[in-house]
């Protein structure tokens, strides 16, 4: 499935913020969500391309994919476990 076709349960826009805010915002959202739900994070800090997948790997969440459009990155994270 293309990243563009992923349906998100929660959309969170953090454009204008930079490392590490997009990551801490992702954590905040995931904390509030139910297991199985998908978060779409919209960011314009290019560093998220590496930071979010790394955060997912560290915290055991599933990174579903991403796409870029007009300088904005759309990243999809599926909550697979509770955050420690």
């Amino acid at each position, binding site marked *: 499935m293309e990243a563009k076709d992923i349906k998100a349960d929660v959309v969170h826009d953090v454009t204008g913020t930079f490392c*590490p805010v997009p990551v801490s915002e992702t954590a905040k959202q995931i904390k509030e969500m139910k297991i199985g739900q998908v978060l779409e994070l919209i960011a314009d800090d290019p560093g998220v391309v*590496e930071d979010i997948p790394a*955060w997912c790997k*560290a915290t055991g969440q599933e990174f579903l994919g991403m796409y870029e459009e007009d300088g904005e990155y759309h990243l999809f994270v599926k909550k697979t476990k509770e955050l*420690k």
Partner: protein
Amino acid sequence: MKRRALALLSGGLDSSLAVKLVQEQGIDVKALHFYTGFCITEFKRRTGQTKDDGTPYTNPALKAAAQLGVPIEIVDISEEYYDIVINPKFGYGKNVNPCVDCRIMMLKKAKEIMEREGYDFIVTGEVLYQRPMSQTPERLKLIEKEAGLEGLILRPLSAKVLPPTIPEKEGWVDRSKLLGIKGRSRKVQIELAKKFGLEYEQPAGGCCYLTDETYATRFREAYATEGMITRDDLVLFAVGRHFRLPSGTKLIVARNEGEVNFLKGFKNRYGYAYRADKPGTFALIKGNPAEEELQLIADIIARYSKREPSQVVIKLPDRELKLIGTPPSEELLDRMKIYAKKEVKHGS
């Protein structure tokens, strides 16, 4: 019973190894990464800078946590951090780095999380005598005491040359398997990284721009000249070229497009000037320039906009004017420029 530890993780080699060493002993680790607001990586990204290969700077702590397989939490202490930068109880290091106060603040936060979430102790990558200001035995002890964590901070890289901590005395970790590293050499750490197959960022540390000499020069100069330092100042000291005009007004001139965009974000709070006839630089005007300095501002804008005569717009709170600027002499500029007149170094 499986013991649980919170580790302070910068993402450098030392803190990564500290995590690895306690993981090897069967300890369940969660990493904490602190956001102070003075992170060079963040700043580079904000101003659109990239690595030589064009990729963005990444957060080393996230990379390290992913590699170590530990959950990581980012702890934002930027709000409170202002106070310790302006008025550190235990003073500054070589530049305006309040390393002792900073450690205490981070450890206090870690203690809160430890108590709230039921962790047993704290792990750090500190190495005895590695940093002259904050890593002497006396300082380590003081920091522990101030944070209310006496005996609860395990420093796996230097444990054998430090008094036994509670985790060691209680047998949660085996002291004999910890290390006794001292000093600035990183040889042992580099070998261990190889052994564990850990990749790490080089150079380690140096992520905090409070240890930057030019930053410190601007901080001290502003304090001496203006008598106070604002939150904006703390950000602006890291950006652009800074000039102090004879009236005491400060001019902050962008060095590249990233900085132009960054400084434009402060337009509603300060006066500003920019080249109007062609693309060029942008500068913030902090203070009230004297009448005869308006031409000087236009000249400086011209100097940093392709070094040619330029049409310059100056916008002050009460008016807007257009002037033709002509690049002034380098000697005149150098007299007003605020920077460390030596090479910039990192490290505390």
